């Protein structure tokens, strides 16, 4: 699972209440555009970024779902979601976009250890 030089981007903020999500995704896309393998881990409120039925943002904000849909084009295929975050919000993977991989929270430390490059948003 570990790819040398891979970048793990951790998303912990929901869409629209700040620019954390958008600027975190920007960092992921730029890294991918530079040819770096990029993996995404969604934790806590960050999983709300993956809800498949979401409209555009709150007043004056661009929607972030189109960016999520674009990740595959940038060869960002690893989208990890923690089971605990899903359960905590009474959601199942049916509510999320395609292609997410569930991960138990206790596996997160191992995931972090496999990546020498991590950015957290």
């Amino acid at each position, binding site marked *: 699972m570990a790819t040398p030089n891979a*970048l793990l981007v951790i998303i912990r903020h929901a869409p629209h209440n700040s*620019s*954390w999500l958008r*600027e975190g995704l*920007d*960092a992921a896309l730029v890294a991918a555009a*530079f040819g770096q393998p990029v993996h995404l881990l969604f934790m806590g409120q960050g999983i709300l970024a993956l809800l498949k039925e979401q409209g555009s943002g709150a007043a004056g904000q661009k929607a972030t779902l189109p960016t999520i849909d674009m990740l595959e084009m940038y060869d960002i295929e690893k989208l990890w979601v923690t089971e605990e975050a899903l359960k905590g919000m009474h959601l199942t993977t049916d509510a999320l976009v395609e292609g997410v991989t569930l991960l138990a929270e206790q596996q997160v430390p191992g995931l972090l250890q496999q990546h020498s*490059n991590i*950015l957290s*948003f």
Partner: protein
Amino acid sequence: MMQYGLLVMGAPYSSPAPHSALRFAHAVLARGHQLAGVFFYHDGVHNASSLMAPPQDELNMHDAWAELHQQHAVPLDVCIAAALRRGLMNESEAQRHGKQAYNLSPPFELTGLGQLLELQQRADRLITFA
């Protein structure tokens, strides 16, 4: 000896992150390590504003970063997309966007996110302050 890089994502006077980052920077250098660069992203771009004017008995974060650069030649890179969005720009960007003022000048440099990724690769440790 280690090479450190810092990522600052908190705004001065709203978040303690920039102040912690600055203290960390001085501690790293005092211990004989190297600081490969500081990258300002998200709300951290506000650290670069030369127009901040806090009361005289408060630390001026812009000047404190500039001093770090003068003393140790640490590059101070600012994400251009995050900066423009928040009203931070240098003279040439101000001209390009038809603005009547600018608030970012050397030693702060506007640059792309690629610079952050490059810093992360170059440094032994990239420490985030958010």
